[in-house]
């Protein structure tokens, strides 16, 4: 198999959707290494709790399971938005976009709540390396979700006001890739950070 078949010939230089998708996947490849580094740091430090609380003491698995579930389901709404967009059903697309953003916001609120709980129970970024790596990993993930929410709402809004008519479907697809990826990262974090407590 030659290099060329591996990369598969492109459909043509003017397929903007293709170009953007390639770019997004390239970027996501990079994000894998980004989150990989954060998760690695966490794995190294998860048992280094110093005098502070450890994972088993503070995690509220049922709570986090619910918020994880909510983020997971936002992938469903996201893919529905994309589906509507590909059928050029803009109204429905907006509904799904807003729904996705709302689920994202619920997830974020859950995270904020969780963080405040942990701080009250005595875990902060400077309690122990466990605390530092936990907050930075989940915080950076939260920031990704927040960016996604902004993108979703902005797209919904712009679609509502009639701007961006042509590019809409494509934008939704690109944002969707990002959103699903952020979800996928949480799938890993949920397992590695919350469920696998040694």
């Amino acid at each position, binding site marked *: 198999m030659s290099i060329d078949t591996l990369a*598969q010939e492109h459909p043509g230089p003017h397929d903007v959707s293709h170009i953007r998708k*390639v770019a997004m996947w390239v970027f996501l490849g990079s994000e894998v290494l980004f989150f990989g580094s954060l998760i690695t740091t966490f*794995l190294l430090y998860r048992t280094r709790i110093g005098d502070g609380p450890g994972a088993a003491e503070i995690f509220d698995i049922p709570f986090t399971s619910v918020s994880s579930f909510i983020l*997971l389901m936002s992938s469903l709404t996201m893919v529905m938005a994309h589906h509507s967009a*590909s059928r050029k059903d803009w109204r429905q697309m907006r509904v799904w976009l807003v729904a996705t953003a709302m689920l994202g916001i619920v997830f974020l609120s859950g995270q904020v709540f969780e963080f405040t709980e942990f701080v009250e129970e005595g875990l902060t970024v400077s309690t122990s390396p466990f605390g530092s790596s936990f907050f930075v990993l989940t915080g950076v993930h939260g920031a990704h979700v927040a960016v996604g929410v902004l993108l979703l709402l902005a797209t919904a809004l712009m679609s509502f006001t009639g701007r961006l008519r042509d590019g809409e479907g494509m934008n939704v697809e690109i944002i969707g890739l990002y959103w699903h990826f952020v979800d996928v990262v949480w799938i*890993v974090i949920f397992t590695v950070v919350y469920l*696998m407590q040694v």
Partner: protein
Amino acid sequence: MSDTAHAHPTPRDYWLIALILAVITGAEVSVTYIDALDSVVAPLLITMSAAKFAIVVGYFMHLKYEQRIYRNLFLMGIIAAPILFGTVLLTFGVLIGD
């Protein structure tokens, strides 16, 4: 592969996939509560989250249906990360226990 490029799943499929994801998540949480599974819980969890990962990427992100180039681009990262970071953790003795 380009012949399948547009055979995207239907909304019904999406709901079904979401259901599967929900079930796996339920299973994940459950196994952590079953003491009898303690010795195998880590591999179980890793398998299940890998499955979720693959499902979301494959179906929701359409990687299964799209041109190979997307998959290859993404796979590079997905393959590189565990190898590199696994090695790092090995040198700290984290993966094999101190």
